[in-house]
């Protein structure tokens, strides 16, 4: 469902104002030679310290950013070339910022999504009713998005990303800043979605609770390369001496960089 083969993404960083620049522009490799496959129906956690290349990967998977090298296929499409077609087959949630219309009531956002994604009216109504019930959106459908609490907004974002029943759901830190109750609700929803509908889920997070409770498979990216790919148990096994998963991941993060 998601295939990356030798994907690289570099940025040219210009330093300081033009007249003060010394030497040439600096090239930063946000992602280098990244390869992994995610099969349909998998639930994969994508981990990595800040600046490791997680967001760059997400942007390339969704077609926002074109890779500098390598090949990407998501739901059978090249994201950067077939952005608009791909958009109908994937759902994207950014935990830190919303893809809903900030000044419009939640209901209007859902209505717009139906038209933009060309979802059949009756299918949409049924799906919206279902999502409203499971995500408990009923109480704030008529509230403008900017007035929603973070937990409410993230649930609204998840619903909007799923209204067109995508085969793949990509979530960038969906549980960041949520209280324990909201977090549990979001996790439970994602687990059911994956188990019952077979939606492929890829999620980035800093919350290891998400990983332990949700993901059968974990990938860890560091300095733009895949540093680990396996099950949660295999992840633990990399550091038998550590007791908590936090310590295991900390060890992986703080290894000297492979250069």
């Amino acid at each position, binding site marked *: 469902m998601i295939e990356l083969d030798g994907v690289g993404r570099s940025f040219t960083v210009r330093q300081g104002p033009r007249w003060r620049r010394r030497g040439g522009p600096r090239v930063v490799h946000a992602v280098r030679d990244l390869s992994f496959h995610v099969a349909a129906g998998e639930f994969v956690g994508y981990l990595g310290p800040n600046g490791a290349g997680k967001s760059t990967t997400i942007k390339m998977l969704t*077609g926002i950013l*074109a890779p500098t090298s390598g090949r990407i296929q998501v739901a059978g499409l090249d994201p950067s070339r077939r952005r608009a077609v791909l958009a109908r087959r994937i759902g994207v949630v*950014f935990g830190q910022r*919303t893809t809903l219309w900030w*000044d419009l*009531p939640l209901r*209007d956002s859902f209505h717009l999504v139906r038209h*933009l994604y060309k979802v059949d009216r009756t299918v949409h109504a049924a799906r919206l009713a279902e999502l409203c019930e499971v995500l408990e959106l009923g109480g704030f459908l008529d509230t403008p998005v900017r007035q929603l609490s973070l937990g409410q907004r993230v649930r609204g974002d998840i619903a909007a990303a799923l209204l067109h029943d995508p085969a793949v759901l990509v979530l960038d830190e969906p549980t960041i800043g949520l209280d324990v109750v909201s977090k549990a609700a979001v996790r439970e929803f994602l687990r059911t979605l994956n188990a019952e509908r077979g939606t492929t889920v890829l999620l980035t997070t800093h919350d290891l609770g998400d990983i332990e409770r949700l993901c059968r498979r974990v990938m860890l990216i560091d300095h733009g390369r895949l540093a680990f790919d396996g099950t949660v148990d295999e992840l633990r096994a990399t550091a038998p001496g550590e007791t908590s998963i936090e310590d295991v991941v900390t060890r992986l993060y703080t290894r000297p960089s492979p250069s």
Partner: protein
Amino acid sequence: MTDLVRTYVLLAYTWVRAAAQYPVSLAITTVAAFLVTALDVAAIAVIFTHTRSLAGFTLLEVMFLYGTAGLSFAIADLLFGNVDRLSQHVRAGTFDAMLIRPASPFVQMAVERFAFHRVGRIAQAGVVLAIALPGLEVPWRRAWMIPVMVVCGIVIFTALWTLGGALQFLLTDAPEVANAFTYGGGQLTQYPLSVYGDDLVRGVTFIVPLAFVNWQPALYVLGRPDPLGLPHLLRFLSPAAALALACVAALAWRAGLRRYRSTGS
């Protein structure tokens, strides 16, 4: 194409409906838009209390120029003026949100927070034109040019806004540069170009084709010789100029978008 229009209308309708939830606010901002632009006409009126002609043009003729340019500018601004918020969207990350939806990011940008109150400005320009036209006694055989020039003006201003937006892919920190061309173009076309220096007029004829918004076709409508003695043919070339600028703008926008998606900044 029909898909783009459908998306535009759908989004615009949603924003208007949301704005209509606060009718008092909507009314105040519409009236304010009318009044703010009316100040430009007040300035013209004050000028003509001191003189009967400005650079060879009478009050009614200046009002005609103002009304046609104002109409084009206000309609283009209502429909596509929001494109100049590109750098804001890039900085806030909302532009990425537009890229993950299955719709043209240009249309989404143009219609974001569709500002219905700007019809106040359209109305204002319409009123000025309606006052000027009867007094000018334009013969019917030349009046056909008036709707043509307004439409060409809309296309030219829209293209300028698009260029301004495309420029912001490069200058994320200084979106105001685009204002000099969009709002500056709106200001320039309010007065007969004979007011300005000859070099400036040649520049807005052959480089940034603002002279084709209203000046050249208006010379035809008003039946006046070109004060600079430029070829007579120019007054019929507004559609060609509008089309050419629109193509340049479309290419610039595509290049900007490609750059954004290959740099992520």
